[in-house]
Each structure stands twice: as C-alpha cells, then as structure tokens.
C-alpha cells in the first residue's frame, strides 16, 4: 500500500482511538488504527477511503485538493481575519457586593480612586476603532460598572459618534450583578440596545453565601425581572461561576437557571485570580469541578429530554469545534490565543491590558500583561516588543505538550494562565490544571458524541445552530 501521511494526531479514548486531522475532523476508530496507518497495513478498505477523502493520508505526495484543505484551515482560523472584536472597558473597581471568589479585587462602593477617567474612556474608544474588525463589541465590566452610568453613556455616545463615519457593527454589553439597575442605567440600555450579562450562582442559599450578602439573591432576581421587562427577555443572559461550595450543587444550580426562565447556562470554573487565589487547593478544585461539570451536564441533558430548552454553552462551543467546519469565536479556547488577537482591555487605571485576567493580575502588582498607557499610539501598544514576545508562545500548534495533543484543534493556548499558575509564559502541560480540565471535559464531550450518538445528537443539533 503506497500513500503519504498528512499531519494528524491521535489518542486513546476508552476502548477506541480518536484520530484528528489539522482542521479538526475526527475519526473514532479501533485501537491500533494509528499504528496500521503508519505501517501501511490498513485492513478496512472503507476506512482507507475515508482517510484519503478527509485529508489524513494522501495517495499523491502533494494532495491534488490541497487548496480545498487550505481553505478549510483558513476557515477554522477565520477569527484572525476578524481581528480584535471584543473590547472590555473596566470602568471601576467599585462594587456593591463582597463575593467570596472575586477575581477582580473589587473595592467598596465608596472609594473614589478606582474609576476610569473620561479622558481614558476617550482614548480607549479611539483605540477600539483602530481594530479593523467589522464587528466591535464594547463590554463594560468592573467592579460593578452600573455604578458609573455617566461613564457608560459618555463611552457609548463617543463610539456612536465615531461610528457615523466608521460604519462598524457595534454591540454593547453591560456585565452587571443586576443589583443597581436603576432607571438611568436601563434608560441607556434601552436607548443603545445594550445587552445585559448578569451573574447568578444558583439558588438563594448558594448565591448569598458566595456574594457575602444576605439579600443578594432576591435583589439579583428582581433586577433580572426588571431588565427583562424593560429590555426584553432575549436581552438578558446570566453567567455562573462555580465556587468551592457550588461544586456540591450541580443539579440545584441548573434547576435554578431553568426556574428563572433561562435557556442556557455556562458552567464556568473559577480562575486563579484576585480573591479566588486564596480560596482553594487548585488541584482538588479542578478534579471536583470536572465531576461537577459532568453531573450538571447530565442533568441538563435530562431537562432537554423532557422537552425543555437548556443549552450548556461550554459544551456547545466544543461541539461546534468538533462537529462543524466553521470557525468558533471563543477567546478562552483559541490558537493563536485570544489575548490581543481577539480581546483588548481598557482598564480604569488608564492602561491597556492583554486580557481580563491580565488586569486582575495587575491588582496583585503583577504587571506582566500590561501593554501600556492608553495615551500611547495604538501601534506602539499592539505591536510592542512585549506583545511580540507573547506571540512566540500563544500558538498551541508550536508549544510542547500541545503540539502533539490529539485535542489541539479544539483547545487553545493561554500564556496568561501559564504565567499565573506556573510562573512561565510557555507553561508545562503535564502539571497544567488548565490542560487537565480542558482535556477531561473535551474528552467527555467527544465520548458523548461517539458513544451516545443516537441519544444525544437530537439535543446537540439544537445546541450548535
């Protein structure tokens, strides 16, 4: 048998092997198949044809349809053409909650030194339009950004004004705990079609414990109801973060989202920044989170089987990567990494940062991912020496432990996380908890697709629309 190997990766999964080519097409095959392919002893003729048709091997040294393969790869990396689309404006560290896991080192509501100046906002909005992306998302974060309505209004109005000539597709998102959704704030949201992204950890006892306040749950639920009434139900979404305590309540959390009428949930692990770093034994947390994820996921599947709409967003992202030929925009699982390429942060302190996590690190006096002053020209910031250094380690195709990983096409690189947890931008995969968590969950979702296809595909097809 004469043929040429094209780049593909493989790993054992349960009692099978998975083979994954450069564009993320996956084949689920008997153990020993990769060896047969390499040794030119493929027995199954239909498998042989599938391998040729799907660019795992080629009957000619250069595949005749190389251009088709190139186009497939280009599509998977299309987010690079889009350039930086997500622009996060950290308006203030002031906050009206005291969350146990706060990753952003929020300050009391009364402090005055932790809020963005109007001048910084002006510079930030101008930088945002330097990105050539046709789609720009302006996301307001904190602290609690709704405490700064004047700043929000100024930022949006400036963007609208510049956009009269720029003509980009603008989206506004307000990340808020929904406690302070005053008429003034909702007025801005109505006028400029701002989406509300709120956070809700689960049932009352859990949410209130996490938030360090007695009545937080009640106020958030009220805030959500008010926002839905004013803006429309589809303009309000919620996110959860799994504290250590949350890990005991996977089904209760999912049920709470369902009860409140949400049709999707993002099962999000805690990240090692801010107050969260003091909270946990990360190794144990990661193991428990993986179990938590699976339990919550199965409960979500049950809800779907009962005819309810409930999407697990993380799984939906992985499924799109696994099952479709299209590019999936999700900054946390990207190669090249999301930092700078897909997201930029304009911080209240007047500096540009590489990611949301980067500005969280700065609160601990680690300025590694501070790109520079907002008063600097855009080119000096985004094309700085610092950013070029990160570019050497932000592709999982080229870093050890990722370059030969079968799941590479579905995962991403995260130099910020590597630096934070391993004090090394390059990172060491065998002890990386980012790697451990993603591998476990991606493998779980793959096994759902291949082992439980008939049971789960009718549900998954609705998740990946």
């Amino acid at each position, binding site marked *: 048998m004469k043929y040429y190997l094209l780049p593909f990766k493989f790993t054992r999964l349960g009692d099978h092997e998975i083979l994954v080519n450069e*564009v993320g097409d996956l084949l689920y095959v008997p153990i020993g198949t990769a060896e047969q392919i390499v040794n030119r002893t493929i027995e199954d003729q239909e498998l042989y*044809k*599938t391998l*040729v*048709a*799907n660019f795992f091997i080629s009957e000619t040294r250069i595949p005749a349809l190389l*251009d*088709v393969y190139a186009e497939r790869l280009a599509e998977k990396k299309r987010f690079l053409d889009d350039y930086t689309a997500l622009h996060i404006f950290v308006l203030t560290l002031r906050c009206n909650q005291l969350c146990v896991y706060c990753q952003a080192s929020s300050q009391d509501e009364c402090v005055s030194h932790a809020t963005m100046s109007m001048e910084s906002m002006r510079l930030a909005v101008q930088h945002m339009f330097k990105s050539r992306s046709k789609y720009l998302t302006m996301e307001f974060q904190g602290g609690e950004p709704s405490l700064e309505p004047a700043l929000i209004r100024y930022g949006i109005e400036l963007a609208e004004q510049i956009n009269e000539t720029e003509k980009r597709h603008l989206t506004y998102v307000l990340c808020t705990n929904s406690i302070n959704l005053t008429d003034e704030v909702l007025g801005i949201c109505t006028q400029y079609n701002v989406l509300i992204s709120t956070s809700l950890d689960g049932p009352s006892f859990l949410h209130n414990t996490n938030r360090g306040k007695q009545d937080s749950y009640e106020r958030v639920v009220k805030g959500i109801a008010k926002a839905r009434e004013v803006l429309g139900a589809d303009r309000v979404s919620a996110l959860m973060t799994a504290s250590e305590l949350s890990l005991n309540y996977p089904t209760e959390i999912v049920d709470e989202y369902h009860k409140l009428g949400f049709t999707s949930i993002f099962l999000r692990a805690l990240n090692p920044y801010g107050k969260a770093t003091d909270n946990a034994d990360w190794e144990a947390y990661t193991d428990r989170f993986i179990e938590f994820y699976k339990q919550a996921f199965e409960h979500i599947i049950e809800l779907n089987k009962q005819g309810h709409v409930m999407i697990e967003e993380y799984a939906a992202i992985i499924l799109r990567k696994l099952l479709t030929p299209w590019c999936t925009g999700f900054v946390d699982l990207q190669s090249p990494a999301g930092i700078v390429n897909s997201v930029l942060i304009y911080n209240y302190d007047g500096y540009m940062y590489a990611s949301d996590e980067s500005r969280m690190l700065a609160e601990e006096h680690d300025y590694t991912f501070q790109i520079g002053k907002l008063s600097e020209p855009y080119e000096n910031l985004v094309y700085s020496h610092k950013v070029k250094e990160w570019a050497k380690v932000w592709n999982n195709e080229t870093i050890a432990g990722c370059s030969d990983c079968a799941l590479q096409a579905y995962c991403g690189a995260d130099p910020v996380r590597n630096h934070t947890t391993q004090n090394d931008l390059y990172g060491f995969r065998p002890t990386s908890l980012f790697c451990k968590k993603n591998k476990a969950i991606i493998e779980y979702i793959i096994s759902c697709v291949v082992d439980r296809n008939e049971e789960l*595909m009718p549900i998954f*097809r609705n998740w990946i629309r």
Partner: protein
Amino acid sequence: MKQRPLDINSNDNTLFTTEQCNNHCIMCCQPPRKIDDIDYYYQQNIKRVMLAPKDLPHIALTGGEPTLMGDKLFSLIRLIREQLPNTDIHILSNGRKFADPEYAKQLKLAGEGKVMVGVPLHSDYEKDHDIIAGSKGAYNETILGLYNLAIQGIAIELRIVMNKLNYMRFPQMASFIHKNLSFVNWTAFMGMERVGFADSKSEHIWIEPIEYIDYLCKAVQLLDDFRHEVVIFNIPLCLLPTKYHAFAERSISDWKNKYTDCCEQCRLKEQCCGFFATSTQLYTGIKPFN
C-alpha cells in the same frame, strides 16, 4: 435527439445542448455520443428561447455536458436573460470545466444571479468517483469546480445518483459534504432511472432501493442534523420510513411520470413521486398506504 416544446405548464423545460460528454458515467440514462452537434443544438436552442413563453418559471440546460459548448454557453445564457428575464436557469453539469476559475467567473457574469448548477458527486473517495464517472481525474476537477462556483456565489445543487457502487458510503459522503462542501445549497439523493447504461449493465450498477434505504436515511439524517438542505428524489414513499417522507419530493418530470395499479389504492399517491415511465422494471417492495 428531438426536443420537446417548451411548455409553461410543465415542470421540466429543457434545452438539450449536446450529446457529448467528458465523463462516461456507468449508469448514464442518456449515454453520450461523440458527434459534432454543438452548433446544431446551439442554433436550435436560440430559436427555442426566442419562441419560449415569456413567463416560463425555469429552464434547464442539459446534455451531454453543456460546458463543452465553451463560451457558447454564456451567449446562450445571455440570450435567455435577455428574452426571459424572470426565468431561473438550471444547468446540469459534471462541474469539471469550472475547475478553471475564469470559466466559473464568466458563468457568474452571464447568469446575473439567475443560474443554478446541478452537479453530480458519486463518492467522497476519488477513485470510486472516477470509476463511476468513467473518467480519471474527474473527481478532483469536479471538487475544484464546486469550490470555484461557490467562490463566485453561484447556487449549487449537489446530486448523488444512488447505485450499487456508492451506496455503502452514503453516510461518509454526507459527513464529507458537511465538512468540505458545506456551501452547497442542497443535496439531492436520486433514485436511478432504469434505462440506458443503468439497465444494460444492471448487474454492476443496479441496486434495489430497499437495499440502500438504511444508508440513505443515515446520510439524510446527518445532513439534516447540521441543517443542510437535503432532498430525496425518485424514491416512492412506501420504500421510505415515515420519518423521512418529509425529505422526499415529487421529482419525476411530468412527461415521464407514472403510477402502478397498486398506487391507485394508496392514500399518499398525491404526495408521492411515483415511478419513471421510462424504467424497464419497477422497484421491489412497493405497497400502498391504506
């Protein structure tokens, strides 16, 4: 070959362009001939277009292989655009000629958004496709042609003629289409007309639908799961599981469509494609829904 008059009430108005083809498909219902007939049909078709009813909803260019007309294809299309500005133009082609990006671009310019190209794909595996197409190199040119048509934004109907040599890979083909040809507007799985090669070489080519229905349903399901348009042509409803009836179309041209005696008792007759009057034998397993 005598052409039928263009008829506003027919679902099958065609301009026959040539009997020549650069493929030699083993199941061809209209086996190609090497005769110099392009000018003959071209002149004939010009007259046919000039005399055609002005509000003809659609017109098909068929053969043989219409792209063998070269640039005459574009002048014919321009004439149709001029004379019948509201008529949709459907070209049935093996797509090979469009491996030349310039040719695809010319089609786009001539067609002005009214052209759709129907292209048969016989397998996801090059050598199987080439065996069925009866021509080495056909597959690679066809796939590149599909990409070039897509780049020009020309609508594409992918046609899979179901036969004994390709039915076992229907699910793999569906997956291949989903991943590599996701831009096609729809995929049609087509039951064979039992005439021409399909009949004369039937032991190599012919397969009864009941033998491939499971493969077909898997393929249709996969494409539908990923929200690709998919249709089943020429398979009577009584051979399909109920779940898949929604994908079946009344696809057989009116002038060669027929039903059998047992169809008279069937309550789904009006929704069913029936049979080719031209086929030499009926499918096995036909039974009425009462």
